[in-house]
């Protein structure tokens, strides 16, 4: 839905300490343009911090778009909490960004039409005037997805947006997101190896302190990949084992820390 070609992003962090631990040292990585990169890793490894760094919410590194233009204003964020405003209805919540930027009333009718269309595609056409409290968790997160898409920004950062949902909602929302964001540069932080294997063009595993990144070959075929694929399931088991071992190592490191 974005009009401009999405940029790739390169990040370099000389040194970043968060909560007393050295998360990143001489970290540099590149995220491909117009593709989904999934970031996996044990809790506390710094996945969210990396995402927040790119979003400009944390200082301490250099983040550049590879088309040379500034990234500010070209990023949309989707978090684990839906962050819907409880006093706004579904339609108004989905257009929050435009309201907060005070964008002119001239485009208003057009924007609203687009929002209605998108919400209808997401199965919310009949709940446009509902307040968030009247919706299920899955519906709320779909509104958050609509809000993210209506920002019309080429780079989308997602921090475990599906992890608080039940299995069925999660599956549906993953498919919707993969379909609607296929021409965006997407960074998806997730705990779930299966989610990464279903959705990622590229899969990066973060581990260690300070962090190192290791790329894992994504399963063949375009995302969203079918769950029944045996190659995908075999990879999931492998990845899970590796993450569990890494998680245990991190806990040991914390236990032995002064």
């Amino acid at each position, binding site marked *: 839905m974005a009009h401009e070609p999405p940029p790739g992003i390169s990040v370099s962090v000389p040194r970043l300490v968060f909560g007393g631990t050295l998360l990143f040292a001489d970290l540099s990585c590149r995220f491909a343009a117009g593709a989904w990169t999934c970031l996996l890793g044990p809790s506390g490894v710094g996945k969210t911090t990396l995402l927040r760094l790119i979003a400009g919410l944390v200082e301490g590194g250099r983040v550049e778009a590879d088309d040379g233009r500034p990234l500010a204003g070209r990023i949309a964020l989707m978090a684990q909490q839906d*962050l819907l405003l409880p006093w706004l209805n579904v339609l108004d919540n989905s257009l929050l960004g435009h*309201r907060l930027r*005070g964008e002119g009333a001239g485009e208003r009718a057009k924007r609203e039409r687009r929002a209605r269309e998108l919400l209808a595609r997401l199965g919310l056409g009949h709940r446009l005037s509902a307040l968030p409290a009247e919706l299920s968790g899955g519906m709320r997160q779909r509104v958050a997805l609509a809000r993210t898409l209506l*920002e019309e920004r080429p780079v989308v950062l997602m921090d475990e947006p599906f992890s608080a949902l039940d299995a069925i909602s999660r599956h549906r929302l993953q498919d919707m997101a993969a379909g609607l964001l296929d021409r965006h540069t997407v960074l998806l932080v997730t705990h779930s190896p299966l989610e990464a294997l279903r959705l990622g063009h590229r899969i990066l595993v973060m581990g260690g302190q300070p962090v190192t990144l290791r790329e894992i070959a994504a399963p063949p075929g375009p995302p969203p990949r079918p769950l029944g694929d045996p190659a995908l399931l075999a990879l999931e088991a492998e990845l899970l084992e590796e993450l569990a071992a890494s998680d245990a190592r991190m806990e040991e490191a914390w236990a032995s820390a002064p």
Partner: protein
Amino acid sequence: MGVRPLITALGLLVCWQLLVWATGAPPYILPGPLAVGRVLLARGDLLLEHALVTATEILLGILIGSLVGAASAILLTAWAPARRWLMPLLVVSQALPVFALAPLLVLWLGYGMASKIAMAVLIIYFPVTAAFFDGLRRTDPGWLELARVMNARPLAVLWRIRLPAALPALGSGLRVAASVAPIGAVVGEWVGSSAGLGYLMLHANARMQVDLVFAALFLLALMALALYFAVDRAARRLVPWQRETLPET
């Protein structure tokens, strides 16, 4: 709310009347509820006239105090210098007992309504400001970060996120205001006035018309209750998206 609180109140009134009959207390020390009821009927005009004065003082006090309090809280939120320069002063000013200012207010503003309204404003200003400001600065950081990534204008963040999110806190402040404003008005009347329920009580007391004192007290309590429930209702209307989590009684 149902009939149960009413039954409790009725029971207490019966106990009161029984106590008066049993002890044979003279009416100029402790009149029974029946005597008070007779005075309420017999001198209704007088009572109503004075009640109207006090009610006006209370309502204007709440209106002005809430507006000024809410505006102060918004100013403190939106403008950092105001926080640095005024906040400490605001807190320290609360060490001053407002009641001690009543004679001064009467001296400056006269025996009329102005000094009582000022008194009510002073007494509710701080609870409203403090509660609303507290709400304004406790906005969910997730919303603020989302707004930042959206390149929101600062004023829009204040107006469309911080302010609505702080309305429940403002509601709490207004409830406190509704329950303390009558105190401010009556204390103002005691210190110096020519009308109002406080004035009436003071004079009736001096003339041993204790039944009239009780009648005025009854009207005052009725007004305070009505005010509290009206404000409580308005405060709930203010935040229709907020669900009550305590079961209905």
